[in-house]
């Protein structure tokens, strides 16, 4: 196996009494692509913020590490990784400051984290604008964010993510705010750029379709813990964790709240003991409420459920 | 009542409420609280400009009057003037705002343009102009202040009425044939009440300040009235020797206006949950 460019090791994050992340591990191999899937509230955004070194004020890390290029991001607030991790945010409309020129906002990132003079930076940025297929790349430097369309803004942000020549691209559902046609273009662009530049890609998404086409492997989160992870094809074709199975049965397209299943995702302040999914799980039995399930290795996959081999009752999959 | 509870939870706003309540108590019982209640008008030239002492905690003024007594007696005047001015401003501004907000067309337009014109001139200058045209005096000053403050109420009520006129429940009321006056008085006005209350509280502080300024400039209260602004003005000729003379009336203004402003702030927070959030939890 190729050495991972990013590896999150047994990371736990708390904010006050809320246990947002608990013992989460994942790895993105150099040049590889990993998808992170889960319903809203499963801890995805906190995981992203930990990786980007911008955990919210008051967040505590009782244990674990986020290693990037061999150094722990949590130890230096992300300083060593700045510029080396490119970030593509969810909402291109809200992620650029409306009162500054878009180009200047990207140049400021380069000023701090990329070598070279301002003139070099401008030249490189125009090149990047061309690479992300922004129309009129020269003129785009002088424009304000509101003068671009949504799809163009996401292209700008991809250019910004690439501006310091990163080793890893982290994308947070970069297409949810866009219309369907634009979504496809942006995904194709991301995929092409990552392949062409040998970038590793960490992709947070709800969308199993995106996952299948873009990511080699996947990690499924439930209530702040990893439920299941492994090669995308295998997980989608033959999900093993009861949560993944029900999720895919209920919503073959998107990971959204389990409809028709009793209960809801527990609040981060009131996590059940034992397996966090057990109150809603058709396979649950006595010890599920007592012991945290240890990850099981199964045909190249990690599954946090000792009963993953059992069949689900028909009702649960209806 | 929820507003009151909200204020009591905020120590700074509670402090404001206490200041205002204290001033009201002082105003109500002024003749009994003042050590020398007759010093509003009498003079004792033999004991003029005495420094603060046990006998005269705030000292005496140029006519030998006890400054503490005059500050206490002045509280009543300050509050009365402010209440009358704000009351009159509400009486003009609220109907104008309701009318202009409810009706569309030339009448509403004209009313709001007139409001804008009044708002386009600094209040004090307009108050001075009015005051001069009608012979200076405390009555004139009050009329002038009311005439310059009503546009704020008109604006507030106008915005609220316009907002509510589009609201579903108002449509429904109009649909079942409720008379506009009834809708305005029973449904729109109560909704605008919190905004009016906040405006009025801040307006009390503003009016006390401006009335004191008019007194100071010699176009408001006239001697021998125990007006705080007037007292500061009278003190000027006796500086720097009689430092206590301007100090205590000025502090009285500061505390009372501070009380109304802090209270108004707290009320605004209570009335607007969005602002409450921005101050933290």
């Amino acid at each position, binding site marked *: 196996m190729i050495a991972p460019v990013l590896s999150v090791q047994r990371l736990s994050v708390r904010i006050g009494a809320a246990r947002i992340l608990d013992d989460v591990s994942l790895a993105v191999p150099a040049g590889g692509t990993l998808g992170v899937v889960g319903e809203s509230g499963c801890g995805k955004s906190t995981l992203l913020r930990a990786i980007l070194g911008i955990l919210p004020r008051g967040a505590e890390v009782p244990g674990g590490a986020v290693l990037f290029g061999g150094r722990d991001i949590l130890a230096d607030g992300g300083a060593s990784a700045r510029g080396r991790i490119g*970030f593509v945010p969810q909402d291109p409309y809200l992620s650029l400051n409306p009162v500054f020129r878009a180009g200047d906002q990207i140049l400021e990132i380069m000023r701090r984290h990329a070598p070279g003079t301002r003139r070099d930076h401008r030249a490189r940025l125009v090149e990047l604008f061309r690479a992300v297929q922004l129309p009129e790349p020269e003129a785009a430097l002088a424009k304000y964010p509101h003068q671009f369309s949504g799809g163009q803004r996401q292209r700008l942000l991809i250019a910004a993510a690439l501006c310091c020549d990163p080793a890893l691209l982290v994308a947070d559902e970069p297409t949810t705010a866009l219309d369907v046609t634009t979504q496809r273009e942006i995904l194709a662009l991301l995929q092409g750029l990552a392949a062409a530049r040998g970038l590793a890609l960490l992709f947070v998404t709800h969308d199993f379709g995106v996952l299948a086409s873009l990511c080699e492997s996947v990690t499924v989160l439930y209530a702040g813990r990893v439920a299941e992870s492994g090669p995308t094809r295998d997980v989608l074709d033959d999900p093993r964790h009861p949560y993944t199975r029900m999720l895919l049965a209920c919503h073959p397209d998107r990971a959204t709240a389990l409809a028709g299943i009793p209960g809801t995702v527990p609040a981060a302040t009131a996590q059940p003991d034992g397996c966090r999914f057990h109150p809603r799980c058709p396979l649950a039995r006595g010890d599920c409420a007592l012991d945290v399930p240890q990850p099981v290795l199964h045909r190249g996959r990690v599954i946090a459920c000792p009963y993953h081999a059992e069949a689900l009752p028909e009702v649960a999959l209806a | 009542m929820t507003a009151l509870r909200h204020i009591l939870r905020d120590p700074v706003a509670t402090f404001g409420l206490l200041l205002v309540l204290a001033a009201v108590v002082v105003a109500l019982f002024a003749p009994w609280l003042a050590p020398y209640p007759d010093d509003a008008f009498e003079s004792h030239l033999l004991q003029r400009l005495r420094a603060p002492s046990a006998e005269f905690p705030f000292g005496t003024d140029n006519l030998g009057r006890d400054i503490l007594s005059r500050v206490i007696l002045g509280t009543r005047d300050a509050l009365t003037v402010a209440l009358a001015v704000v009351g009159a401003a509400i009486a003009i501004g609220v109907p104008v705002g309701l009318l202009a907000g409810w009706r569309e067309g030339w009448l509403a337009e004209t009313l709001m343009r007139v409001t804008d014109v009044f708002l*386009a001139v600094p209040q004090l200058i307009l108050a001075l102009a009015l005051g001069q045209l009608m012979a200076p005096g405390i009555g004139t000053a009050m009329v002038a202040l009311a005439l310059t403050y009503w546009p704020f109420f008109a604006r507030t009520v106008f915005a609220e009425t316009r907002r509510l006129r589009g609201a579903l429940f108002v449509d429904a009321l109009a649909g079942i044939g409720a008379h506009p006056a009834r809708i305005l008085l029973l449904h729109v006005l109560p909704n605008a009440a919190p905004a009016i209350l906040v405006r009025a509280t801040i307006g009390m502080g503003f009016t006390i300040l401006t009335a004191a300024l008019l007194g100071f400039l010699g176009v408001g209260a006239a001697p021998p009235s125990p007006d705080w602004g007037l007292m500061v003005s009278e003190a000027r000729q006796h500086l720097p020797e009689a430092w206590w003379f301007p100090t205590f009336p000025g502090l009285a203004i500061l505390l009372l206006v501070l009380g109304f402003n802090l209270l108004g702030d707290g009320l605004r927070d209570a009335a607007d949950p969005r602002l409450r959030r921005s101050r933290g939890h």
Partner: protein
Amino acid sequence: MALYILRRVLLALPALLGLILLTFVLSRVIPGDPAAALAGDAATPAQIAAIRAQYGLDRPILEQAVVHLRQVVTGDFGTSAFSGRPVAEEIWQRLPATLELTFAALLLATLLGIPLGLVAALDHNGPVDHVVRLLSVGGLAIAGFWLAIMLQLVFAMDLDILPLRGRIDVPLGLPPRVTGLLLVDSLLAGRPDMFWSACRHVVLPAVTLALPALATIARFTRSGVLETLQKDFVLYARAAGYGRVRLAAIYVLRNAVTVTVTQIGLLFGALISGAVAVEAVFDWPGLGTYAVQAILSADYKALLAVTLVVGAVYAVVNVAVDVAQAIIDPRVAEDGR
């Protein structure tokens, strides 16, 4: 942008026209019989009639309004009943003094208020925040005339480190008038001694006048920064690796001050009102003292002229504020808000 500025100017005109009409109505309606008011208590009916004819008060009211409008627009405010000199000339003499004072105060309030609001927001609910909050409420509760006297008492009378009154040390004389602003004219005349004297004289009045404005600016900056810090683009900028100082002082502040700038425009009215009190205490020869003198001497032409000029300056400042806002936030000019 040019189009936007033009539109703001055109929008300000109706308010000015309304103001002129208002002053006209005030001058004709409120005194009852303006001719009698002008003539004074002891006038005979014949004298009153003569004055009525002299001022055109026997004409139809609409014609009078048109005449009034024409006079005002051409800068003819009549003759002061107090000094016998043209009101326009006297105002022209005194306007720069008031402008110098208000701009000095506004500058002080902005330069201190914005950083104060910023540090308060960055220390949200911390000790700095509480101090700034108390200052911003207290600053609005202090009577300007009282603060002025207290400052005089301490710094001019007691410590004797700053001058008590006036714009400049009288023996120095005045620099040749170019702008009318002593701080500028003294430098243009190459007279550092005059400049220094003018600086020392402006400190206390400007501080007094600045305090309420500073309070308002700090307060709006604080809430603007707090609101901006919640925005997605701030999180994004942090993730992308903006420096902390630059993020707070430039990236966030520029968004936050759009609201503050609007407030500065509205504050100008309060500053002018405040200037009346401050000028009275410091014997500052500006429009404020002129207005007070006009009131005390029942010089209603002078007072109406001051009202108009102040209204006009106010309108100009607010147009300038709108333009400044469009420069800070390019979306404003395009929305035409």
